[in-house]
């Protein structure tokens, strides 16, 4: 009996160890032949390549580790933008699919069916090589609302110039903490005394007053810088000042959010449909207002169905952002697993770091989501 249980495990273990041993033995031999020694020391060497778009200060004189950080931050940036827009579009479309209006329902359905049945890579190419290439040159661009310029070289938007930005950020954090306390207090008060506190009003008040105070007392100062057209050479123009979103970022974020939104829309639809009609009727019959029915009865139950698959979609979006490499958006894969790998030739180290990074991102998000799921799960006796 015991033998029957141990044998298969032993065989599996031996096979796995043999495969790993075979691979690492070969790797050692191959690296010796090429005169490379395994190690991560190269990370501190000077990288001597440039990256087009980076959130932190970076040029060729920085280390490979810095290049890795640039790539990672760019990946996170496009993922966060994608997640925000995908959620907004997804929720709107998901609700539209439940609409009683035939035209709206059909439009949403066509959108979902269309965008989710076309490979993401194709969509990225479409936006980057076909759609955004049709935009005007900088000198011919029409301003939107006078300050936004959508051109073939990128999207130029006004930027804020801050003095003492840190104090402003602290004030916002303080406001958020205050709101959390007020909410907890209001909940306790309602449970004990049954009276309701206007939490929303107080929250808005905090969010306005504290940052305002930081302007008046903390010496925070903000001015808006509007992009202005500038001539580089006879035929080449660009915009100076403000913030430039490169076309790679725009097309990637656009494609990612439009593609992922279709899946999120289906999750939302399934979630809202999953709440039985009896729940709404029961809630209405005990005298809750329609708003309360939605907030206290429908949403908590729908969210329980919506959140796990939606998290999966967020994870997919983050992983799919690696397709950036196809249109030269400098994300982790392009900067690190592309350029840095070409320069150093350290395939094993770099690919393993890249994979581990994605693995860490995925596992962190899924651990957090499992915890959240447990927290909101129905507590059965």
């Amino acid at each position, binding site marked *: 009996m015991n033998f029957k*249980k141990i044998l*298969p*495990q032993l065989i*599996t*273990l031996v096979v*796995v160890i043999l495969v790993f041993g*075979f*691979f*690492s033995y*070969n*790797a050692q*031999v*191959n*690296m010796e*032949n090429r005169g490379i020694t395994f190690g991560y020391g190269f990370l501190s060497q000077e990288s001597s390549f440039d990256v087009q778009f980076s959130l932190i200060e970076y040029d060729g004189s920085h280390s490979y580790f810095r290049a890795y950080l640039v790539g990672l931050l760019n990946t996170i940036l496009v993922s966060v933008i994608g997640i925000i827009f995908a959620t907004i579009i997804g929720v709107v479309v998901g609700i539209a699919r439940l*609409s*009683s*209006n*035939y*035209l*709206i329902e059909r*439009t949403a359905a066509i959108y979902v*069916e*269309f965008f989710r*049945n*076309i*490979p*993401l*890579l*194709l969509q990225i*190419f*479409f936006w980057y*090589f*076909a*759609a955004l*290439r*049709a935009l005007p040159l900088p000198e011919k661009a029409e301003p939107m609302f006078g300050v936004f310029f959508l051109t073939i070289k990128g999207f130029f938007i006004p930027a804020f110039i801050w003095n003492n930005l840190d104090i402003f950020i602290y004030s916002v954090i303080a406001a958020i903490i205050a709101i959390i306390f007020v909410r907890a207090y209001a909940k306790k008060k309602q449970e004990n005394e049954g009276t309701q506190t206007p939490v929303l009003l107080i929250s808005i008040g905090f969010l306005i007053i504290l940052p305002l105070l930081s302007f008046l007392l903390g010496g925070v100062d903000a001015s808006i810088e509007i992009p202005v057209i500038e001539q580089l050479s006879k035929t080449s123009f660009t915009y100076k000042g403000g913030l430039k979103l490169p076309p790679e970022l725009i097309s990637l974020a656009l494609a990612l959010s439009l593609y992922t939104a279709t899946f999120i829309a289906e999750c939302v639809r399934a979630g809202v449909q999953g709440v039985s009609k009896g729940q709404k009727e029961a809630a209405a019959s005990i005298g809750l207002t329609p708003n309360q029915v939605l907030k206290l009865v429908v949403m908590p139950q729908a969210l329980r169905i919506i959140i796990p698959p939606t998290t999966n979609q967020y994870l997919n979006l983050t*992983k*799919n952002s*690696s*397709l950036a*490499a*196809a249109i030269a958006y400098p994300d982790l*894969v392009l900067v690190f*697993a592309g350029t840095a*790998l070409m320069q150093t030739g350290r*395939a*094993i180290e770099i*690919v*393993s770091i*890249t*994979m581990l990074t*994605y*693995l860490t991102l*995925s*596992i962190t998000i899924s651990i957090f989501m499992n915890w959240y799921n447990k927290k909101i799960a129905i507590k059965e006796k």
Partner: protein
Amino acid sequence: MNKLNFLSPNKNNLYTYLYSGIGLFSLSILIVFLNSFFSLDLTSFLPGTISFFLPLIIGFIGLHLIRIEYSGIKFLDTINKNINTNKFNALLSLLIIFAVIKSLPPLLSWFIIDANFTGDSKDACSGSGACWAYIKTWFNRFMYGMYPNAEQWRINLSFIALTFLGGVGFFASEKFKKYLTLYYVVVYPIIAFLFIFFFISGGPIFFDFSYGIIAAVISIVIGFFIPSKFKMYYFIIVPITIYILLKYAFFYEELIELGKIQAFEWVETGAWGGLSLTFIVSFFCLIFCFPVGLFLSLGRRSDLPIIKYISIGFIEFWRGVPLITVLFMSSVMFPMFLPEDMFIDKLVRVIIAISLFEAAYVAEVIRGGLQALPRGQYDAAKSLGMGYWKMHIFVILPQALKLVIPGIANTFLALVKDTPLIFVVGLLEIVGMLNLAKTNPEWLGFAMEGYVFASIVFFIICYAMSKYSYNLEQKYKTER
């Protein structure tokens, strides 16, 4: 006679409301229609903003006037119920209708009216519309990649044969249904592999194997009509007979030597491409990832700790990394792991990488099916004295797999949509070929046409598959 109250139309004076409402609504649509199709502006005498919003306002009032509950007119009630339930819905409906009318003329002119369908060079495309001549010229490349034009019938023939062999299941009579699983799981993949490997890649080794394939195919097809009594003997005797006949009786070798039949030209995998490569890659990945995923899912639910944790580690690893890094690994890192003199073909490496990647997803899908089975099924099987494998093969898996057919179909759909990524290792399927064609100096500037074409192709494939999987889901839902 009741007083007219235009703020809240009701059933009294029904026709007054109805006619004025329909009139206004039609007028608004007419304005937009004329504006969009004939660029006539009926309301140009009004100031700009009002002229712009006039159709919307008129249409909104029109819809408001025909919003009469229980009017007794069936058609009107249907319209009201579907697009005109309240003010907000009426506004959205109008916006959608106007958007459709507005976007039709530019789309029509781009796709059809101003498009160029004929010609074989860039000069033929002078119109403002799409240049379909570009697609026509490059069609072979988009479908077959760099595969030599003269040899493309081999790909066509293989796909036709494989489709036919794949469809055998639909025509098999009741008697042979029980062999179908065996056929699809073991026989069909082997035939497909032989076909693609030896027929599409061709070369001198082709003949050694072609007899075997032809013999196997013919005998299997005939085999479905042979009484089961003789089946055992049949499957041993007939293939061998056909093989020997082909090899010696028809004197193929002599014919080749005489130059009457040419041996197929060897086409290396680097030249494969286009849509056919998409099919080949997805087909093989499907075949390989399914068994691997099945064992992984069983491993993950196993009581044996070492097997369980190895399975979990494997699954979570592949699910945690993006496919593009897996392909990077297969192209730059994997060769480092092999002995110096060992070389694995690029396409094979890619197929292995994608299969392992998808296997992790398939494993999770199958695990969902295994978990959905009630515990009683396991207990019942055990109480009959079944062992682990017997229990799974005869009781658990048939039920669990039936449950997860839609899930597996979805994974396969994702797989098809992931195949364009193989551009990372330099294999060019349809999207890769588009990018290549786009940079051809003689055909610059037709990116849009190419992407629209590829989108339509992928949409048709994926939409058909998703509808099919939905049908399967419905079918099995009713059976349970």
